[in-house]
């Protein structure tokens, strides 16, 4: 079987496996990237290219499988095919420790003279805390460059740190493919703000025997255009990868990503407290909706949405249960900014001097006085 057929076979196999799995907690998402790029492989002339990259990702709480294929057509008319499938599965956590087993296989083919394939497995041991973690890993497998397969061995260690919307990673790896050996040191950053996601990688091949040396770096930006589409921009330089067979190159690419399946569960990262219906789904006031806006660097902003009112007040353990009139901000929005401490708080709302009520957006709980009270938390 040629490498090109292997590439598409790997993608098709992964796709089939996803279609045949039935797991209630699983989530499958698909994307197609269509774009244009300019690329200059080391030792070759620069060329423009058009690309199409379908991908599918299947996730469960304990792991994920990703399959993707890329069709590239260069301005010379030559074509390149790449396909890969990678799976990663986690063991249950034992305190802060977690094991991970992953496998990846792929193949690529450029016209009729260059073809690659690889298959590797990796075991990784993580120590994970809420905002940081570290790992060590070992990899073994086989890779081929149009000839007899060569053994792959690699060891790596890394650490990551999260600060608000920013995730930083550093890693170092020592790899050996046949008689080629090299050591890479790499750092990366990932950040997301609203509709924009940024990624950047900076690394260096600090030692090598047959694998080249030098610095490399890539960056990419994704701008969401609605729920199912995004604009992608990327560029930089990547190093030769003797395992997957990619040759070092500089490039710039622009693409449109289309989500073929919207994520079933999108966990928002904004810092706004619950909106909409109250926790019990009933019994909360439909005439007042509470929104708690928390920014650690500022006092807490309480916003109450009331369709039609002359006076809106709140009372809670942050006002010594004294009624506090809110300021009208227009459009049915009433607000106040208060230095509310971190923790669990109780609140009620009163509209135009009527009875105290639990606003939607707060959790309703018995108040010990024969009624209910709203509860919200400030992290």
């Amino acid at each position, binding site marked *: 079987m040629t490498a090109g057929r292997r590439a598409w076979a790997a993608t098709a196999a992964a796709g089939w496996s996803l279609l045949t799995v039935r797991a209630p907690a699983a989530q499958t998402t698909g994307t197609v990237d269509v774009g244009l790029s300019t690329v200059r492989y080391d030792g070759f002339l620069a060329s423009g290219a058009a690309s199409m990259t379908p991908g599918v990702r299947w996730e469960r709480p304990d792991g994920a499988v990703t399959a993707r294929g890329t069709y590239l057509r260069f301005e010379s008319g030559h074509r390149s095919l790449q396909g890969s499938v990678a799976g990663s599965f986690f063991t249950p956590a034992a*305190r802060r420790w977690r094991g991970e087993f992953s*496998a990846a296989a792929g193949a690529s083919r450029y016209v009729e003279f260059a073809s690659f394939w690889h298959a590797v497995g990796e075991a990784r041991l993580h120590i994970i805390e809420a*905002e940081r973690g570290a790992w060590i890993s070992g990899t073994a497998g086989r890779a081929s460059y149009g000839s007899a397969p060569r053994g792959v061995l690699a060891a790596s260690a890394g650490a990551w740190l999260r600060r608000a919307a920013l995730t930083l990673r550093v890693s170092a790896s020592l790899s050996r493919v046949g008689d080629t050996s090299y050591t890479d040191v790499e750092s990366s950053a990932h950040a997301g703000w609203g509709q924009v996601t940024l990624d950047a990688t900076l690394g260096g091949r600090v030692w090598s025997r047959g694998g080249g040396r030098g610095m490399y770096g890539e960056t990419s930006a994704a701008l969401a255009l609605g729920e199912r589409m995004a604009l992608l921009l990327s560029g930089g330089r990547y190093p030769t990868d003797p395992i997957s067979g990619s040759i070092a190159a500089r490039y710039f690419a622009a*693409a449109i990503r289309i989500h073929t399946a919207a994520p079933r569960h999108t966990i928002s990262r904004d810092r706004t407290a619950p909106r*909409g219906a109250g926790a019990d789904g009933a019994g909360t006031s439909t005439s007042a909706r509470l929104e708690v806006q928390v920014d650690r660097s500022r006092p807490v902003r309480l916003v109450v949405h009331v369709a039609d009112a002359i006076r809106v007040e709140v009372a809670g353990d942050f006002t010594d249960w004294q009624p506090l009139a809110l300021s009208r901000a227009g459009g049915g929005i009433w607000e106040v900014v208060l230095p509310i401490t971190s*923790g*669990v708080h109780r609140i009620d709302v009163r509209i135009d001097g009527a009875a*105290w009520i639990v606003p939607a957006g707060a959790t309703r709980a018995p108040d*010990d006085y024969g009624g209910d009270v709203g509860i919200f*938390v400030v992290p």
Partner: protein
Amino acid sequence: MPHGLRSLATAGALAAVFVATAAAQDHPQDPRLGRLDAGARSLVAVVIDSARAAGLPTEPLVQRALEGATKGAPGSLIVSAVQRLAADLGRARAALGAGATPPELEAGAAALRAGAGTPVLAQLRRSRRQTITVPLAVLTDLVASGVPVDSAAAAVLALAAGTRDADLIDFRRAVERDIALGAAPTAATAAAAAGLQSTDATHVNAGARDARPGRP
């Protein structure tokens, strides 16, 4: 009673009065309690003094009394509510340990009231180095949302060790949203927990050798 013993008892009683008076002078009655009627005020003050002597936070007790006053509750009900909260704070501290912060104790008391057992609180304490105020609040919210206590506790315990407060709040929001959309509370909790855990997995995923989008 022999004269010696009687003298000793008298001296002891006087000493107790002296200590109580001194303690009261050290901690004069909170002027905010002036909103309660006289009978309830003195009884609430006793509960608060006892809590202070036991090393429990007193502000939640004051606030619970003030809540009753604002809502026009009878004095007896206010005293009962404050006594019940003091007892819950004591149980929470027994489960969370002497090092628990006042917000943790308050959140722990709410969780206990919601139906979580003290073993759950103790397990949560052991599973997480950072403050557990938010995990406890999320646990309470889930139960209020109709999630069985066992399921809610299992989900929060599974997430607490490696999940940020903001993500836990997102998790709770996802559960609330799905319940509002018609999902069964237990299923909504499991799905949201799975979503959150897989998000974390993505961040540390060894297999995530995602090529840069568009890389030729």
